[in-house]
Structures are given as C-alpha cells and as structure tokens.
C-alpha cells in the first residue's frame, strides 16, 4: 500500500518522528522506517497508521521478511529498540522479554541461571523473539518440549487501533480468559504487533550427546524410528536428513549422565553397533543450512510418514533430475530445499502438496525466487475455517493495515 494520497511522505515522517524521536524515523524509498522505544509508542504509531489507512509491517531483524505473501508497507515498524529481557524469574522458571530481543541474546541471559526457552529457532543471532513467534518457527527440540504454543504463557500486544492488551500471565498454569497468545503465535503480524512475550523455561540440557547413522535411502529408517519413539529414552531430538543418494538419521539424547551411556547403547543395539557414530552438534544446524537455497518449503506430515515422504521425495527428485535436500523432524515437520533447477520449483511444490494431501499434511513455501512468486500459491491451503479467520482479522484490524495479504487466504 502506498502512502495515502492526502499525505506526503515528508508529512508522515514528521508525524512518526514526533512520536519516536527524529533519530528513530527515516525514509527508505517509498516507506518510512520507524523504531518505537516501547509499547506506548507502538500504539501511537499504529493509531496514526490506522486513521490514515497506512499499511504497517512489523519487523524484527528481517531474517524471515520474505516469508508469506509479499507486503509493500508504508511503515516498517522496527522492534529493534525493544530488546530488554524485562524479567527472569528464575526460581519460577519464567521470563518476560521484549519482542525485539534476539533469540540468542535472550538465551544467553537465561543461561546464566542454567535455563532456556526450549526451542531452537533459525538464525538465533539475528532472529528476534517477535519474529520467531509471529512465524511460529521451531526446530529439533520440539520433539521433547513442544512448540511455541506450549512455551508461551503470556503476551502483550498492540492492536491496529492502538489498544494495548495483555493475555495470559506469568504463571505456567492459567486458564483465565481466552488464550490470545495462541491466536497471535504464527499469525504473521496480521492481528497485532507483539510487544512482549512471557515464556515458561526449562533447564539447559547440560549432558547431551548426538549420534548418527547413515543409509542410502530414508525408508530404511522407518521401522527402527517407530521403535525408537516407542521406547522411553531420554530423546531430545530426532531428525532424518535426506539428500541425493544418501541420508542420515540423527539422534540427540539428553539427561542424567548415568542414563546417557545406557540409552546410547540401546540406540546402537537397534541400529547396528558399527553403523552408529558420534555426531557433532553441528548436525542440528542442518535445517538452517537448507535456507541457503532460494526455494525452501515447510512441510508437515504425520510422524509415521516422515521416512516414507522423505524417500518418495528423494526418488521423485532423482527421476526428475532435480537436486532436493530435506531435514525432517520426528514430529513430522520437514524443511525441504530445492538446490538445482530452481526455475522448476513449481513442480516440486505441486509434488509435495499432492504427496502430503493424502495424510492431511501441508506444504508452505517459505522462500522462493522473485520470478516464481506471483504464479505460486505460497500457503497452498484453503481450510473450511478460512471465513472465520477472515472475520477474526476484520475484528482485530478492520482497516487492514497490518501486513495485509501476507497470510493464508490473503488475510
């Protein structure tokens, strides 16, 4: 959305500068970059935008800026000045952090008391709390600790009309009122701006070891993986990495030292003593490395389908002369990257959607080249609850100023 006709860029810039201070407002092409210092300033900027019908895109570090449908904001609302870990109630194992804090900076602070938000986000050094939450990112730790919906206990958000609202609280167990933090998580900034997040915390995994086993194709792992997940092992993460003609099953165990050796032995007994080797912790960066490709998807399948889908994908890409790599978590969440013939990305997207439809899964395009953008349906979903989602959007943001069109169904 371009600047409202009635107001020039300069006029608008002057007005936001009066809210946040001149040094925190600047023009960048057709947009204004504004960096509020606190939730009250966010509210003021949003009120101004709401009245003027100006499109606003909340931005953390911009590490996932291209996710979702493209938006051309009149105002880029940067959360970069809101980086404080407001509270770390370590004895209660909770924290409150501002949305602009980087994931790694938050974790470093929490680590001082041996605690963490039990989620491994992409690009933790850059990615901000707000961005991770808005895109509902999660990594390999999800198997053990759940996703953001299980870790967020409260939130402060600012609505399009400037309303500052709190939801949830600072206690882990709480059923008072609607759970708006769940609505906000993964809503891609379309319902409000996340200003602060309250998390429940877990102890850092002090004693942890990773091992790996290789195979030519992932179907080989299907049976042992099912077995592994049915045992009561101190599993922290399990992933299947698949590339051209090779794949690996990675397993991380975390727990008391006296159990780890025993559990590692059980893993070896299952997968073959000789085949299992100790793995570097860097294997858990595999998902992030896939984002070096220009076409990347988040694919969700049933947990028991992980190996079968990975295998089918491997065979399909070989048959079609495309290089595809994937990292699949045991939870059923996969990251898939096309590493050659990117111009034929649409074929991959179509194959994956057809393949996962059978098990009720989904395939969302996270990254793709600009040339493919307009013909590609990023979200690939048309849930029967879409009219209700649109109604929620209409209630929260009646003038459609917050990331309009970014989300599913052009919400």
């Amino acid at each position, binding site marked *: 959305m371009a600047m409202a006709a009635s107001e020039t860029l300069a006029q608008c810039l002057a007005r936001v500068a009066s809210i946040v201070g001149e040094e925190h407002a600047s023009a960048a092409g057709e947009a204004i970059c504004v960096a509020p210092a606190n939730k009250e300033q966010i509210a003021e900027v949003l009120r101004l935008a709401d009245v003027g019908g100006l499109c606003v895109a909340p931005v953390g570090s911009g590490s996932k800026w291209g996710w979702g449908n493209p938006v051309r904001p009149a105002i880029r609302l940067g959360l970069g000045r809101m980086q404080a870990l407001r509270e770390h109630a370590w004895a209660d194992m909770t924290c409150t952090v501002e949305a602009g804090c980087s994931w790694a900076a938050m974790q470093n602070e929490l680590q001082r008391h041996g605690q963490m938000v039990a989620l491994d986000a992409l690009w933790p050094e850059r990615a901000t709390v707000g961005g991770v939450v808005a895109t509902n990112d999660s990594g390999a730790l999800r198997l053990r600790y759940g996703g953001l919906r299980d870790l967020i206990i409260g939130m402060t958000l600012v609505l399009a009309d400037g309303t500052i609202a709190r939801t949830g609280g600072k206690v882990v167990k709480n059923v008072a*009122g609607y759970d708006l933090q769940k609505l906000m998580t993964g809503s891609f900034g379309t319902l409000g701006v996340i200003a602060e997040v309250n998390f429940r915390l877990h102890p850092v995994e002090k004693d942890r070891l990773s091992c790996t086993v290789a195979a030519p194709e992932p179907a080989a792992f299907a049976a042992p993986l099912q077995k592994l997940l049915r045992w009561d092992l101190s599993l922290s993460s399990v992933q299947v990495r698949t590339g051209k003609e090779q794949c690996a099953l990675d397993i991380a165990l975390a727990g008391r030292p006296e159990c780890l050796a025993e559990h590692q032995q059980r893993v070896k007994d299952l997968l073959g003593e000789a085949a299992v080797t100790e793995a570097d912790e860097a294997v858990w960066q595999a998902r992030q490395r896939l984002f070096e490709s220009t076409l990347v998807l988040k694919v969700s399948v049933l947990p028991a389908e992980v190996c079968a889908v990975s295998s089918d994908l491997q065979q399909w890409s070989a048959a079609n002369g495309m290089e595809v790599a994937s990292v699949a978590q045991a939870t059923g969440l996969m990251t898939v990257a096309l590493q050659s013939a990117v111009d034929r990305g649409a074929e991959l997207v179509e194959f994956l959607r057809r393949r996962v439809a059978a098990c009720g899964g989904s395939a969302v395009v996270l990254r793709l080249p600009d040339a493919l953008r307009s013909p590609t349906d990023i979200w690939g979903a048309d849930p029967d609850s879409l009219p209700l989602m649109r109604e929620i959007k209409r209630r929260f943001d009646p003038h459609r100023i917050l990331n309009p069109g970014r989300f599913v169904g052009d919400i």
Partner: protein
Amino acid sequence: MLSSGQIAELRAAVGADGLLTERAQLQTYECDGLTNFRVLPGAVVLPRSTEEVQAVVRICARHKIPFVSRGAGTGLSGGALPAAGGVVISLARMSRILQVDLANGYVVVEPGVINTQVTERVRAEGYFYAPDPSSQSVCTIGGNVAENSGGAHCLKYGFTVTHVLALEVVLPSGELVHFGSPTLDGPGYDLAGVFVGSEGTLGIATKVTLRIVRRPEMVQTLLAAFDSITAAGQTVSDIIAAGMLPSAMEIMDRLAIQAAEAAVHAHYPQCGGLLLVELDGPCTETEALMREVQALCRGNGAWEVRVAQSEQERAVVWKGRKAAFAAVGRISPNYIVQDGVVPRTALPHLLSEIDTLAAAAGLRVANVFHAGDGNLHPLVLYDRTVPGQEEAALDLSYRILHLCIENGGSITGEHGVGKEKQQALGAMFAEPDLATMQLVRCAFDPDGIANPDKVFPRPRLCAEKTGPYVPHPLETAGVAEFF
C-alpha cells in the same frame, strides 16, 4: 421461555427421546459441580451426532435462543450453568472413540467420551492420555476441552490444550468447521488453541483429536511428611532448582490430610505439610532422581519419607489426593473449592496470608495444591446453617483470588472462570485486555448465544468499541513492573 413452536423444532431435530422439557427432568441440569448457582433451562437436548448438534444450534441461531453445552456437569466454576429459559445441549450420548492411530500417537473421540476411557482404550498398547483432572473417572473430553482441564500431572505433561491436535466444531451459527490437524502447524491461525479453554462460548466441539503419550518405563511416587507447609514448599523449590521436572508435586496441609484419611484411608502420615512427588521416565534416570528427591526431602526436615512399593500402593496414595475435595465433606458440612495460581515462589507468602484472612473471618481453610505449578485449591470450610457463614466463606474465597492476582498470579489454573469468577476476571485483566478477548468472541458468536453471560465480567454487545489504554491493575498495584 421457549415457545411450543421452538420446542417442536427441537423435537424434530433430535427426536422425542432426545428432548427433555418436564420440570423434574430439567432440574437434573440446573447446575454443574458448583451447586450454589442454579438455573432451570427451557429444554435439554441429547443429540447423537454432529448433524443433530448442528440442527439444534441452527434452531438456536435462528431464534437467538441461548444455548449451553454440557458434558458430565462436573465443572467447578458454573460453566455449564444453563441460561434461563435457554437450551442445554448435553453431549453425553456422543461417546464413541472413533479412531485410534498408535503409529502417529493420536485418537479421535466424540465429546461425551469419559477422560479415563481414552487411557483405557490405549493402555494395553503402552500409551495413556495425560491430562488427569481429579474428576477424570466421570468428566468428559468435551468438558475438558471447554475448560482446558489440567490435573496433577500437567507440571510435566501440559494441559488439555497441549494434547488437542484437532477439533471439529459447530459454530454458534450452526456451521461446521475444522481446526488443527493431526499434522502440526497447518496454515492459518491456531483456532484449536483459542477454542480450547473458551468455556463453551465459541461453539461446540463434536470431534476431538487427542495426542496420546507413551507410557513411561517407570513411575515412582514418594510421600514426605514435614512439620510445616513451608518446609514442604521449600523442597518443591529445591527440586525445581536442581533441574528436575517431576510429573507431579502435590502438597496437602493438616486439615486436608485429616479429611482424606477419614474418607479413603490412604495411610498418610499426620503432619503439617505432606508432599507427594511423582517421577516417571526411564528406569535408571527415575531411580537416580528419586534418590536426589529423597535427599532434598530429608535436608528440609522430612521425618518420614516413603516411596510407594507397588502399583496398588501408588493408587492408594493418589486416591487420597484426588478424593481430597469430596473428603472435606467429612470434616465440614459445606465447603467452597477455589482455584488460584501464583508464581511458585510466592506460595509460602500466600499461604500465610490465607491463614491471616481465615483467622480474621473465623473460618477454616484446608489447602491442597499442585505445588509444582503454583496452583492452589484452598477449601473454605463452613456451615450453611450458621447465619452469615456462607456469605463469609464466599467473601473469603474471593479474597483469596484477589491475593493471587496481587501476587502476580491468576484466578484460575484449571477450573475455569465460568459463572463463579466473572467479576474476578475483571480484576485480573484490564478493560482493553477483555475488549480484545471480546473481539474473538464476536467473530465466533456475534449474537452472543453460546454460553452467554459467562467468563466475562458483564454482558457485552459485539458493537461495543474498545476503550483507550488504561493501566493494568497489576501495573497500578506496582506488581507488574517489579523487574
């Protein structure tokens, strides 16, 4: 009241044997587990299928008749209290387990399935359904979804919402929609997450896909007797500080122990503070952790530390704990159960404040709580036949909730707001917070016919605008900015 035409429409929707209109029949439904609120509904319907639920809700939508859905009616906050002259939709006849998928760790059930039936169905295969409210042998999954029920083991395993993967929902318009999926992170808003715990105000769940959990290799339950609640509470803090996450940590005070003993003879030691710790997981790990827990108990002055030696002994220990509410009936003619939450570290302070308030009111309070997550269940004991005592007891129970708010906590950890705590919700959240929740309510139910006049402090209209920012009560009280 419902007109004869409306009654006829309802009869056509569910059949004559699915409709109750006689006063004596309706009285069965006039309250839930919170018996001091009673309202007679206009009719009760007992649909057998999603289609019948839809048909009933469409009739309600067309005539703007308020409806209240109901499971087993065990709720403790009046969430299933009928709307006067409205329709109660009992899901009791929709009680089939529709699908079990062990490979993917889920089951699909109808809302009338009893909580324990889920575990019973998958136990032989080595799985269980984790949320375990004390009423689990009678309460329904539909009710658990409405209330986001917890239980003793949510410290480790999470709440109902943690275990709901997908829902089939009849919206207040009668439209059928699906939220979530057995696969994670489907595109769109997390409507399943919002729906769970919405206390019947957003629609009716007619199918629920639940995550089931692999049974742990070992479960060990320990009882430790302390002279005081404070010492028991300190042990809980020490266990957490040691980086352990037990599946449950419960504390009972002397009065609660007496009551439980009188009711189920759990062989609890008579003491000032009884701590129950349950650990589960791989054998070697569980045994190692249990040794650490025992040492921490003794370090804090526990004079009896007992680990249940058999499954039977474990069951008895839990029976005493889970029967604690009802057991209080043995030592007091009447009682009120409350459900506050505070940060765990605020528990000792809160308990002493409760003592002070109770003494001032001249009433006894028995304390049972999920200590691991700071969820208290103070039981305010009173005698209805003594003039003024019921009012004093109610007043005390609400004061306790306000204490929880002042200490940075919540007015409900698992029982829900319902009818009982509507006003207290207004003390916990500021007007803009409530107005924002109302946006969701209005998107789902613009006419406000689904469980009206519950949860929120007063009836609201969907056209109401949100107000300007006002400081949160916690902020005004100086509680929210203590960092």
